[in-house]
Each structure stands twice: as structure tokens, then as C-alpha cells.
């Protein structure tokens, strides 16, 4: 995991500033926004896919507008339904971590019990 974390450091921070906050949420999503979201989602897209998703997400988001018929100014959100909070467990080792078995799940070569990934820079 440590190796992965190091590798992740390269990940460029892309704030959503390029996507302007809108008040009018009925405006369909733009092609540029789809490009940006796809990048944040780490998804590679062909021009045809960009077109298709722009159209599909537009109509899905348009449908979501129905929610704005409801006045929720005095309603609390429900993020989960169990009512559980702060579920703690004792900090003890309950079983051996199957390190070799977990590493074997990776399709990549292993070295010194670490997964060897592609270079971060070309």
C-alpha cells in the first residue's frame, strides 16, 4: 500500500474551478464538463463516447430537477439509516493478514513483497 501511496503523489490536483457552479440546474451538462469529469474519474473517452455521455447525462440530470419541486429547507439529510455512530473495535490483531495471497491478486510483477508498477514519469 505504501508503494501505491507514493505513486499516487503524482496525481495532479484538479480543482473543479473549471466547472462553474450553476444556480440554474436545468441547464444540460456541456461537453467540456463531461471531459473534465471523465478525467477526474480516470476514464479515457473517444469523441463518440463524449458525445453520447453528454447527451445521456444531460437527460438524466434534467430528470433530477423533479427533486426541486420539494421544499426541503427544514429537512435534515439522511446519510444512513442504521442510526449507528462511532462503532469502535479493540485494536487487536484478530487474524493473520494473508500478504502473499493478497499480492497474488495483482496482475503485475512483484518485487520484495511489493507490486511493481509503471513509471510515474515517462
Amino acid at each position, binding site marked *: 500500500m505504501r508503494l501505491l501511496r507514493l505513486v499516487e503523489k503524482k496525481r495532479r490536483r484538479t480543482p473543479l474551478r473549471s466547472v462553474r457552479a450553476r444556480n440554474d*440546474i436545468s441547464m444540460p451538462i456541456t461537453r467540456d464538463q463531461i471531459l473534465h469529469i471523465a478525467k477526474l474519474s480516470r*476514464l479515457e473517452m473517444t469523441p463518440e*463516447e463524449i458525445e453520447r455521455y453528454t447527451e445521456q*447525462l444531460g437527460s438524466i440530470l434534467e430528470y433530477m430537477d423533479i427533486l426541486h419541486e420539494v421544499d426541503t429547507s427544514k429537512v435534515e*439529510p439522511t446519510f444512513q439509516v*442504521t442510526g449507528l455512530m462511532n*462503532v469502535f473495535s479493540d485494536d487487536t490483531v484478530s487474524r493473520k493478514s494473508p500478504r502473499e495471497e493478497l499480492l497474488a*491478486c495483482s496482475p503485475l510483477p512483484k518485487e520484495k513483497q511489493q507490486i511493481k*508498477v*509503471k513509471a510515474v514519469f515517462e
Partner: protein
Amino acid sequence: MHNFSTFSIQQIHKGLSAKRFSCVELVEAYLQRVHELDSKLNAFITVTAEDAHEKARAVDAKIARGEQIGLLEGVPMSLKDLFCTKGVQTTAGSKILEGFVPPYDATSVARLKSAGAVLLGKNTEDEFGHGASSENTGFSVPRNPWDTSRVAGGSSGGSAVAVTTGMAVFALGTDTGGSVRQPAALCGCVGLKPTYGRISRYGVIAMASSLDTVGILARSSQDIAVVLSTIAGKDPLDSTLPDVAVPDYLAVFKKSVRGMKVGIPEEYFGEGLEDGVRKRVEEAVRTLESLGMIVKQVSLPHTKYGVAAYYIICPSEVSANMARYDGIKYGPTANDARDLSEVYFRSRSRGFHPEVQRRIMIGTYALSTGYYDAYYLKAQKIRTLVKQDFEEAFGEVDVLAAPVSPTVAFQLGEKSQDPLAMYMSDVFTIPASLAGMPAVSVPCGMSDGLPVGLQIIGPQFGEERILTVANAFENFWKTPTPS
């Protein structure tokens, strides 16, 4: 020759205990059924015939030694391919996990195995549970056993097909917005979505963490009760389970439904409900009345906002849960990538079905700065209102009765190009999911030769109640089996 494909768990238990047939015979008959039917019905991604034989021989040896066997011992089961199974490929129905062999069992699977159930294989499904037809997959698409040009429903489509056609006695599926109830209704078996937090999800590949539940598919609610009693309850490996005692769900079948109040939510019988489905469900309600239940009209006024709220909350959680698939930890990797970043982009684009990509993008959008309040927070507030609707209704009635799906099984390909139309398939199953309430789908007749499901919804941890009603109804109405 026994007709094992319609046997209940109790029948199997009695037969094995009395040595009327052996476990090897039973398991072979089920595997034979898979062999005969599955090239046409596509219910399985993986069949674990060798392991199943070995388990069956062990059960037979135990019986031969004169030892007592448990109720589930030797009972053939299948699992949606979303359940981690030690040493057996687990794909989540997605190419991005092809070849992934988990080093451990999900808690529910471990509990079933230690109760002696025999795994026959892993079922086809919509990738990661994303769909209502099982068409959104990198593997084969299950077919409706009543008409193979139609869908099995989804996302636990393969499991519903396997159980309905006698390729497994029961199956575990998952239900996030209707994924057990809807395929059960469309194929004609019983499907339980329990209360959120009733069954451990440790080792079940996550889709939307505040909504996901492990569900059970079987040919009767009695069989469901046996399985539920075995797998429900606290698990140190899943911190989302409230400490609620697990009752003996089998005991409920001695209870009468006489005098129980059943609410009919008017919003579930409005526009968009197919006539044939409406007729069967209305007849089912009259049946419940004839069994001594008191029928009452109720209103769940926020029902129509359920789909919109769900398709914000679910993709938002999906976008977070799908972040772990990177072509590095498991599944195939993009070998042609030049650097690490390209590994991520290419592995994900090639591995995920377009529906998964769509949900990741909707979620990423809904959670992003400037949109969070308008979408995600708004949807969670609507969720509160949907939950309150149920709580008010359950102040007046014991259970609710409604349709499961607005239509019978639709044609393959009919909705696969129109995501919004597909989302609408979940309109009557989503509200109970948002509220975390348990609900069961029970076959209640046929419309145009295709099964219709009756949905019985209960309050949180009201599984006993809904299974009591389901069982009373089943005793009255016997489900036909597809030829």
C-alpha cells in the same frame, strides 16, 4: 427418480437424513440441470462442479457414519458473482475483475459453508449490480426462463434464473435498489431484501454503501427463512450492523395473518403500472383480505421522487467505491500503457461497462464543488421524507402490499440504450431501499405468460412480519414452474 429441481430445503433435509437419496445424487442432478439448461439461460459465470462433488461426498460420509446433519447440510446453492469466494473466481460481472480469485470468503458465504450448503457456482449479473436487466455485463446475459427473448431482470438476474429453474435450491444476491426483488418478480421466485444492516456485507463487492444489502432468492419464503436465520446478525468484520437479535425466522410460519393490517399505497398503483400487473396485484390484495387481513389505503406521497434521489445517491457512492479498480491491485491491467496514469485510464475504460462509467461520472459530478448541495445533499433530504412516509404508514398498518415491477419482463435490448427508461424499472423497489426497510417479492400470478411479483414491505427489522404474510400468501397461491 426424484424431481429434485422443485425440492424445498426441508424435503432435501428429510430425504438425506432418511437416506432416501444421497447428497452426491442430489448434487449431480442439480449439476446435470445446469448442464442441460445453462447454454440457453446463461445463469452461471462459473460452475464449481468438482468442489461440489467433494462436499457432497463429505456429507454422504457424515450421514453414513450415523451423524446428525443440519438443515442446510448438502443443500445446493449458487451465489451472485459479487460475493467473494475463497479460491473461486469472483468477477462482479465485470471484465475489470476477470480472473480475480479472492483469498477469503464473504461472511455470509462462510456462514453458509459452515452450515454445510454446497456451492454449485457463481451467477451472471449486471456489473457490480448496476442495472435492472442483467444486460450491463462483460459476461453473458441471463435469459428469462419463460421467454428467452426477454430479460431475467437485474441485477441479480442469473441467481433468479438459477433458483426458478431448479439449477440451485437457493441463491444469494444483492439488493441496492431492487436487484433481488425485481429479478425474482420477473422470473417467478421469492426474493428477500432484508433490512439494511441485517446481514453482513463483509466480502461482498460494494456498489452503494448506504444502500447495499445481501438478499436471498429461493422457491419459498420458508427456504428464505432457513437461509436468513443462518446468515443474519452481528459480524465483527462489518461495523454497519446494529446489534439486533436474530429470531428464529422459521417459527413465524406457525403464525396467522388474521387481523394483521396491510396498507395499499396509492402511489404504487398510478400511472406507468401495466394493466396486467395491476390486476394480479389487486387480486393478491383480495387474497390477503380473504386470509383475514385488514386492508387499508395509505399514502406515501414522496414515492415519485425516489428514483431521482436514488440515482444521485447511488452513483455518488458508486464513484467512490469504483475508485479502487485501477488495473493494479486485481483484474487485468493495460499492458500497452506508457506510464502509471495511462494504466489507470486504460484499465478502467476497457474494464468497466458503459453503465458503470456513466454512474461513476454522474456521481463524480454530483459530489463536486458547486453541485453537492443541489444534488447530493438535496437527494439525502428527499431520502428523509421517503423514510418518514414509511414510518407514518407503519404507524397505521403492519405491512404494505404493492407491485414489485411496473411491467412484466421486457425484451432484451428494449431499454439498454435508454438509461433513464432502465432506471424507471426500479420505481417501486427504490423507496424501501432508500428507507432501509425490508421487502419481499412473492410470485402472484401471470400476465401474458410472464410472472408478476407482489411486494410486501415491512418496518425496519420486520422480516418476521413480511415473511409471515408471504408464506400465508404462498400457501394460497402455488407458483407454476417454467417448462
